[in-house]
């Protein structure tokens, strides 16, 4: 009975564990950095977190739908290269708008390519998106062979704005959460969880399984573009390798947020918390004066733990059954 209640709670509120981690991590961070919630520090942190929030939100949708997208970081690099090539220091408003629209479109086309391969050609998501990640990285290097480019200062200043006293990036993060809470109540979300949970059953019930799979990758592409946009606004410049490390981090954030990698469960609220937890751990590590490669170790341990978790639990349960 207790087991059942726990199961219901974790299905309805998958982010509970992430919330616990979030409070703990923020507590420790606040201890080592007492001005954590001052406007300046908060704004600085949120500007760094936001790109990863967009990216992880996209990853979460793909993972809930039963797939995975290893090309998201490469898409970020590609879109970053496109942005700084189309928009220069001297660009006027119309050029800026064209640049942003082109960037969003590029991400969605890239996502569409992933989605068609996975949903209709029926290739393995891991292999497909790993392969396309090289294509997207290649395009990034082709457009922007070496780091460079500069955005108009108006754009980067806009990203640093603090409307109503809170950083713009924080408002946008809240907006992502709100959109998800709304989306969770649509039929699309029901289909998403059904396809990720039990694709054969979903098909027999009449859910358009292939179309749903396709859509998750297109959404992931769009969110990669938004992630690249936020990242470019924050740095103000371009680097064809800037997104490389972000793929793994986005998966770690999804897992930390309580989303199961096998699909059909989880969501974006926990994922956003996962991003903050990771960023906060990074802060703590930098304050603790330990080498930064500890961060990589922490990321890796979280993934291993998440993948091994279900097996370990079964092992422990099986052991107690024998006794």
């Amino acid at each position: 009975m207790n087991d059942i209640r726990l199961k219901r709670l974790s299905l309805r509120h998958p982010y509970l564990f992430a919330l616990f981690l979030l409070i703990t991590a923020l507590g420790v961070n606040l201890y080592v950095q007492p001005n954590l919630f001052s406007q300046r520090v908060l704004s600085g942190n949120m500007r760094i977190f936001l790109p990863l929030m967009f990216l992880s939100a996209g990853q979460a949708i793909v993972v809930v739908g039963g797939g995975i997208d290893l090309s998201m970081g490469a898409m970020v690099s590609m879109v970053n290269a496109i942005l700084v090539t189309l928009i220069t220091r001297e660009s006027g408003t119309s050029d800026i708008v064209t640049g942003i629209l082109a960037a969003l479109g590029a991400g969605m086309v890239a996502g569409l390519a992933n989605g068609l391969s996975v949903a209709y050609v029926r290739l393995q998501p891991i292999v497909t998106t790993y392969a396309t990640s090289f294509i997207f990285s290649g395009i990034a290097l082709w457009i922007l062979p070496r780091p460079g480019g500069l955005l108009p200062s108006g754009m980067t200043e806009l990203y640093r704005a603090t409307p109503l006293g809170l950083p713009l990036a924080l408002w946008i993060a809240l907006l992502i959460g709100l959109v998800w809470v709304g989306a969770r109540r649509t039929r699309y979300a029901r289909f998403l969880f059904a396809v990720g949970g039990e694709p054969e059953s979903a098909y027999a019930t009449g859910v358009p399984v292939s179309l749903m799979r396709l859509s998750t990758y297109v959404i992931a592409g769009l969110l990669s573009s938004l992630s690249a946009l936020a990242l470019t606004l924050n740095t103000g410049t371009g680097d064809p390798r800037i997104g490389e490390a972000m793929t793994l981090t986005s998966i770690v954030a999804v897992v930390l947020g309580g989303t199961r990698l096998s699909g059909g469960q989880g969501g974006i609220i926990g994922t956003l918390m996962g991003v903050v937890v990771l960023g906060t751990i990074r802060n703590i590590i930098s304050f603790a004066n330990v080498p930064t490669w500890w961060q990589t170790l922490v990321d890796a341990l979280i993934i291993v733990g998440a993948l091994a978790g279900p097996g370990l639990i079964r092992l422990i349960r099986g052991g107690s059954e024998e006794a």
Partner: protein
Amino acid sequence: MKNMSVSLSARDMVKHYGGVVALSDADLDVRSGQVLAFIGANGSGKSTLCKIITGVVEPDAGRLSLDGERVTFPSPQVAKKQGIAAVYQELSLIPDMTVAENIWLTHEPLTGRLLVDSKSVEQKTRELLDLFSGTYSEGLEPGAPVSTLSPDERQIVEILKALSLNPRLMILDEATASLDAQQVDRLFSLIANWKEEGKAIVFVSHRMEEIMRIADCVSVLRNGETVKTSPIGDTDEEELVELMVGGTQAIPDQLDETLEPSEAAKRLAVSGLQTRVLKGIDLEVRDGELLGIGGLRGQGQSDLLLALFGVIPCSGRVVLSGAEVHFTHPRQAMSEGVALVPGDRATEGLLMRRSVLENLQLPSWQKYGFPLSMDKARRDANRVADTLNLVMAGLSAPVNSLSGGNAQKVVLGKWLLRDPKLLLLNDPTKGVDVGTKQEFYNLLAQLRREGTAIVFYSTDDQELLGLCDRVLVLRDGEVTAELSGSTLTHAELVRASMESNQGNGV
């Protein structure tokens, strides 16, 4: 015919899965206000025909007409739009979604044009659940995840899910198999109401008494062919069983002079064996005896074999070669001379891309020292390949280059290399051609002469009848009958598999 009318007819339906013929010439007719019982033995193609009608499977040939007009259902969505809904044998529920989410999936009531109206969903779900009120535990409520429900409650949800579409034609494929008597009664009174409303119902069941109770008409399917359709009043249980079985007794008679098994040593004695599925099994096998396990699919036969081999946990007493054993890992069973030929050779029996040699020697490599003496391994493998009459390009050919029958011989061969004392066979002739089957039977006969005790589960009734000394019939994890000698006939076997309350044998 108050507010809906419908008639559906399927004619000359044909469906092949690879080389296996699921349907060769199947017909089905049903119309408003009618309950059609659709029956047939294991593997006669009932589920395939149901899936064709609901658009899950596309037929290779045949005509489907709805209300007199010819139709095709390329996908489940199309059939659903025409008012056809099915309650499946393998449930179509999403375990981690709630009862309400599952029932209304794809036709959720909306507020505005976008958002799911969760209040209305919950209320409508309660109304549906009320139809079965009093027959389920309080764990079954709209917000409960399906994975937390018991099998009978899941079945109820599956039924309500089909009903929520308010279909004109409803297919109940083995929907009563996991329901208890009270729930079945409730379902039958609901079916009576649906008939009044003008729905058409196709009722697939193995329980004769239920068919006699509820059906207006009956269609009998045998080997993918419809052999009879008639009003239920014009026939009786005897005749239906006869029709399902058919006049043919194609498979070998008792192969040869059986050595008198009662004299031989007792190889295996099991009492009170329990697993999640099995509810206390007793059995005995002597050296050189071939014990058959029969019954409908999925009544715990595979569980029995897996439990004996130490794959799944079990309780109860298992005495092997005179000593009590409790296997918790197949390795332990193997070292005691037990071998299991699994049911699905592609996933459980073989490394499809590796060579014949590797597959044959996989359980036996430790016999060949370090470094492996490959010459000896090859010699032994060749010897077994000869015994099995294995048709192959060579020992180094990959197993996936062999025909189905020959691949199955490899699965058997790898265990023969270990000289098993007790051989467990889990439906080993599934999808194997007739010629290979014959060789396989001869091999079993030879093993028996050599004194191997064999437990043989088969979904092919004719095999059980032709090969076994005794057959235990399982139903719901219990032995419902032990057939041997004069009671070992097809009619008895079918009867024991299908009839719920029957005191034959044991």
